[in-house]
């Protein structure tokens, strides 16, 4: 009875499609072990060794072409690495997150923003660790030299960086960690986008599935653009100079700094039009019957990337206004409104989610649909 439980536990670590087969085989051997002069624990030991050494990439075990599963795992790892890179770069660029300085900012808002910065940083670290795990599993499964090199670099790189951050040794240790991580990332990228696709099949979706996602995404882009534009032109100037009215702020900027409101409005409008137009283009594509390749996942990736990019390039759209405020009123050039502090997190979250979605390509199930117009690599 006890050995049966042990065998069941060991079988849980086998690939799903062969789990029941090996469990029954081991149980039969275990029941007859005494007749063969063996102990049941010998069978359990053999089962454990098989679980460790089994070829997990064998098509009979995965029900997919050889290489498809490691490639998918690598892709997920890369998606997580890219998401973490977005968040960590954002934290670095904003020095741990923008702290709004406006007079009307409540302490609760500051605490919330601080908590978001704390959580997003740790989620990014978690994403790196899970990404390393995916790389490790892919390397073990793939059993190829390239995959092992990528795995070794992808595992040791982040660990080296973590050690360098913790113990602050010579700067070359940090450099080595960064180079190793980048090398692992690049080799992983080669594995995913290599010249010999292992599974050329089509991923498609009907209009009824992609249009709601596109509509929701366009609405989200619209909200970000409206908030971003109003914040650049109205909320942030008021937050920077709370003592003056909106009209007085602009009048003073025109008088002292020869600020041109119309140029600023044109700059912000161009920014809004470009990213809004991009979102509408994605929607039109998704709405066209022929664009079957626009699956909900791809539509989401595109629109989330637009949100992230719009937030990033908002900095340039609002640069002249921010500098003019700083020059006119002797303030710093940083943004002060609550929207200016929240939007970077929205942008980072959108880009990170797009990166994770790009790694989470589903298994292909509809390769035989003849009307599919696009070819995707698993």
């Amino acid at each position, binding site marked *: 009875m006890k050995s049966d439980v042990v065998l069941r536990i060991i079988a849980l670590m086998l690939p799903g499609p062969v789990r029941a087969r090996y469990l*029954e*085989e081991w149980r*039969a*051997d275990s029941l007859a*072990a005494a007749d063969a002069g*063996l102990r049941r624990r*010998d069978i359990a030991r053999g089962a*454990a*060794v098989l679980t460790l050494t089994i070829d997990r990439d064998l098509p009979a075990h995965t029900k997919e072409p050889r290489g498809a599963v490691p490639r998918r795992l690598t892709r997920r790892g890369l998606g997580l690495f890219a998401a973490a890179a977005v968040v960590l770069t954002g934290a670095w660029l904003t020095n741990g997150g923008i702290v709004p300085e406006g007079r009307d900012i409540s302490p609760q808002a500051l605490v919330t923003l601080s908590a978001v910065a704390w959580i997003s940083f740790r989620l990014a670290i978690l994403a790196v660790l899970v990404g390393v795990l995916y790389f490790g599993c892919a390397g073990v499964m793939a059993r190829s030299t390239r995959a092992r090199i990528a795995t070794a670099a992808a595992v040791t790189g982040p660990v080296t960086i973590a050690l360098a951050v913790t113990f602050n040794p010579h700067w070359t240790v940090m450099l080595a960690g960064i180079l190793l991580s980048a090398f692992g990332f690049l080799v992983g990228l080669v594995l995913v986008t290599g010249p010999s696709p292992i599974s050329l099949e089509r991923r498609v979706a009907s209009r009824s599935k992609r249009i709601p996602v596109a509509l929701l995404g366009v609405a989200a882009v619209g909200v970000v653009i409206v908030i971003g534009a109003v914040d650049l032109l109205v909320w942030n100037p008021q937050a920077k100079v709370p003592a003056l009215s909106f009209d007085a702020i602009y009048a003073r900027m025109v008088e002292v700094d020869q600020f041109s409101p119309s140029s600023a409005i044109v700059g912000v409008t161009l920014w809004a039009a470009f990213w809004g137009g991009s979102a509408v283009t994605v929607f039109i594509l998704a709405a066209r019957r022929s664009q079957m390749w626009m699956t909900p996942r791809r539509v989401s990736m595109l629109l989330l990337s637009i949100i992230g990019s719009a937030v990033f390039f908002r900095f340039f759209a609002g640069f002249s206004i921010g500098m003019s405020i700083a020059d006119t009123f002797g303030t710093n050039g940083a943004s002060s409104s609550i929207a200016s502090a929240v939007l970077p997190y929205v942008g980072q979250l959108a880009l990170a989610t797009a990166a994770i979605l790009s790694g989470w390509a589903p298994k292909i199930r509809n390769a035989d649909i003849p009307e599919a117009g696009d070819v995707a690599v698993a």
Partner: protein
Amino acid sequence: MVPLSRVTPATVDVLNAFLSGEAPIWGLFVVKKTGRPAGSVYPILERLEGSGWVTSNWEDDSERTGPRRRLYELTSDGAAAAREVVAAAELRDHARAARVVAVPSEIAAGTLA
């Protein structure tokens, strides 16, 4: 069928068990026949099956109760390849044995360089 990337003495023993002519062959039988631990035999059987050297099926014995035994047999290509592998291993063993026998006789004759 895929050639084996490495052939260990345990692999040769397992292939010998298949070539012994006894049937049916299942995991526990190979363990007993070769004297190798299950920790060696199970992975070898998995590797042989994954490489197309053997196939396996559930036993069809309505009189037996409980879990079924998994029965293995060499494929036609696998049988030919197994004979080659075993023959090559035997040749190596004979050559090694001949060297072991030759060296002491040379020592006795004083002709060893």
